[in-house]
């Protein structure tokens, strides 16, 4: 029986996906005694099926603070990657050559330019460089680009990493910090108890002083148990990966990137289908066709895997970070770009959680923004 007056852990992080792992690693680094409660081998787990972009351009229209938060994470990523390498010996292969968003028609070029200028004209928007490029300018960097590519937007702050290595590095680091990773501990119920929390899980009861909900989709169910709200929904995305080839593509190009191991990843789709992760050949086919318009040489490569994963999306697509007003010590963290924001989650958010307080500038990320009644 756990002793309620002396909890087992300083913090229980619910969810061992990228968001939970990054926060847990940051907390453990701050000297907190951390437990990560996770499900078993098969679970809805976008963290294992993402595209691994550390992506800045185009993000934050409607919430400039999110643009700033994203840019800050990208700026922190190099240091974050070195910390992980120093601690674990694992190189997560973060690289920031700048990213291209390919545009396949004049209309797409016009729309993209307008969208980016609206984004960057927002008041209190963070300042950073980006460019609109025509075909010739793109072809200068990538001569093998398809003739259908009319142009691209380019941003020097975009990059990518190997998100599976990131995952492994975080878990290796957590183990080295002495954090407890507890698989097969799906959290069923949470009760605030004696200034801390008692969690009923598939693997037994766990007591902790503080609580971080980073359970991806399941945070929607868990948050109300501690006076929080996380109204997230699944959105399916398909990804294709090819056999390994010799390196030919240095840049992340929107929906196409070559991994450090040589495979080419090709994404993605946006489907509102609930919790169905099955793969549809017609969707993969559309993705494949678009990729070949961007890079015709991809057509000869063999596809070795396809999969579909479920993005964790809030109603406006921006993150939710919040501490409970009624059960202080309980935090929720969810976002749809857990790779990009991993550096922030580990090095900016975790220290605040360790200190028990989110500063003023996190208020914009509160889920209370969804309480505003819709205008008729």
């Amino acid at each position, binding site marked *: 029986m756990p002793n309620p007056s002396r909890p087992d852990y300083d913090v229980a992080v619910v969810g061992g996906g990228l968001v939970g792992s990054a926060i847990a690693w940051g907390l453990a680094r701050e000297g907190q005694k951390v437990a990560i409660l996770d499900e078993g*081998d098969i679970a809805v787990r976008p963290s294992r099926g993402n595209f691994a972009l550390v992506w800045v351009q185009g993000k934050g229209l409607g919430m400039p603070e999110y643009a700033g938060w994203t840019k800050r994470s990208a700026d922190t990523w190099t240091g974050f990657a070195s910390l992980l390498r120093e601690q674990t010996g694992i190189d997560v292969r973060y690289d920031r050559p700048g990213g291209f968003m390919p545009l396949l028609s004049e209309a797409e070029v016009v729309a993209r330019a307008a969208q980016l200028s609206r984004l960057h004209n927002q008041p209190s928007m963070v300042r950073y460089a980006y460019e609109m490029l025509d075909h010739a300018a793109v072809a200068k960097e990538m001569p093998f680009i398809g003739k259908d590519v009319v142009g691209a937007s380019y941003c020097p702050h975009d990059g990518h990493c190997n998100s599976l290595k990131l995952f492994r590095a975080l878990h290796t680091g957590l183990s080295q910090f002495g954090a407890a990773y507890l698989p097969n501990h799906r959290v069923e119920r949470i009760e605030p108890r004696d200034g801390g929390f008692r969690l009923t899980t598939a693997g037994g009861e766990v007591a902790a002083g503080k609580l971080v909900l980073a359970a991806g989709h399941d945070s929607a169910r868990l948050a109300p148990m501690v006076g929080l709200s996380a109204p997230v929904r699944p959105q399916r995305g398909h990804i294709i990966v090819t056999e390994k080839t010799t390196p030919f593509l240095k840049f992340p190009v929107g929906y196409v990137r070559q991994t450090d191991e040589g495979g080419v990843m090709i994404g993605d789709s946006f489907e509102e289908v609930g919790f169905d992760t099955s793969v549809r050949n017609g969707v993969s086919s*559309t993705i494949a066709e678009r990729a070949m318009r961007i890079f015709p040489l991809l057509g000869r490569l063999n596809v070795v895997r396809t999969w579909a994963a479920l993005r964790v999306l809030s109603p406006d697509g921006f993150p939710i970070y919040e501490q409970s007003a009624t059960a202080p010590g309980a935090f929720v963290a969810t976002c749809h770009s857990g790779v990009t924001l991993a550096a922030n989650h580990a090095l900016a958010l975790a220290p605040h959680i360790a200190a028990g307080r989110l500063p003023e500038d996190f208020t914009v990320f509160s889920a209370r923004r969804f309480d505003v009644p819709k205008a008729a």
Partner: protein
Amino acid sequence: MTEMTTRYDLAVIGAGPAGLAAATLAAERGLTTVLLDEQPVPGGQIYRSVTRNPVRNPGILGGDYWHGADLVGPFRDSGAAYRPGTTVWSVSRALEIGLSRDGAARILPVKHIILATGALERPFPIPGWTLPGVMGAGAAQILLKSSALVPSGRLVMAGTGPLLWLLAWQYLRAGARIDAILDTTPGGNWRAALRHMPGFLRSPYLGKGAALLLDVRRKVKVIGNVTDLRAVGDGALRSVAFRQGGGPERSLPADTLLLHQGVIPNINLANATGCGQHWDEIQRCWVPTVDEWGASSVEGVSIAGDGAGIAGAVAAEHRGRLAALGALHRLGAIGPEERDREAATHRAALAEAQRGRMFLDTLYQPGPDFRVPKDDTIVCRCEEVTAGQVRDAVRLGVGGPNQAKSFLRCGMGPCQGRLCGPTVTEVIADARGVSPAEVGYYRLRPPVKPITLAELASLPKSEDEIHAVLHP
């Protein structure tokens, strides 16, 4: 290929004994049937190249092999369509088959599907098993059946199971030299198998099997109780090291090492389709779960032959016919009485063919050392992941093969886990001290065989599928 645009009632995937028998019966009973197979000629693994065999002396391959011709003849006369050289890379719950032929992919919708994709050799992870010069005994047998090739130079065969002995016997008849057979059958298996002796004594395997075994043992040096098997060489095989029981390490120079420790169902297509599967404790492999008509958990998808659990070629034939009767019934072509009446003879023949199987499965169950290798042994040949790395991942909290895949990339290569899946499951189970059933297996997705991006791009797309990607 205009007839490929006809709507078939039934598609059978795999032209081994199960698929040939299923397609023949279904077409004879009036279903428009198509048989799709990856190979250029019918026969599957056991009867490979039976219609076009370069081995002139029929005595080399033995009578059981030539029985394949008895299946191909009626199939040709049945009216079923036959598409050789056709790889199936996807089967959906909507009963749409993704196939690829001559570098072009397409989708074929049908009303019922019988998967008869057979077996593959169980992985045999030992140090050095990736060296050139080391291959599967079944693989070498394919070289003999389709190309009349036999090993030259020094040959060592190692492992356990009927196919190893059958191949040795075929080699002797072909005049090939075998330097040694290293028998890895664990000593204790005999005791366990004795319980099942009564069934075996009445089985069709007994007479043939015993004669074959004696013949080989008379002519070849057989070393029993072999452990700590290693393939040694730099760039190519040079020698085979091993111990006998707990004895000192010995070494035999070798140019070719043929490994075999039984066959396991080829489950990738069934798994990717979403068919339920379970762990078989005796055969130590994952098996799709089917009912007495071969029906899987996915409506309209049946599985027949060794792909639904290893039972051998003769059983495969009858299981194919039972699956065909199940499909005829499901599609309304025959009533339940007719189905059951017709099934009776096939069920009796199936029971006859399966008699003695428990004895063989128990006797030839590979020992734990050859299923759960030591740390330095490669388990995933594609991504070159070792058993030690898998154990390290378990220490970090990895509980099953899907998490191991994210941590290590094992199972992410082109073979899609076919040659590492069973080992990864068993290594994790062993490290965690739980059963493989609890550890689980890879979740697979189409394509189960590689197709080019251009082939994928050429497939038909619906409005909503296009919209899911090219949204405004």
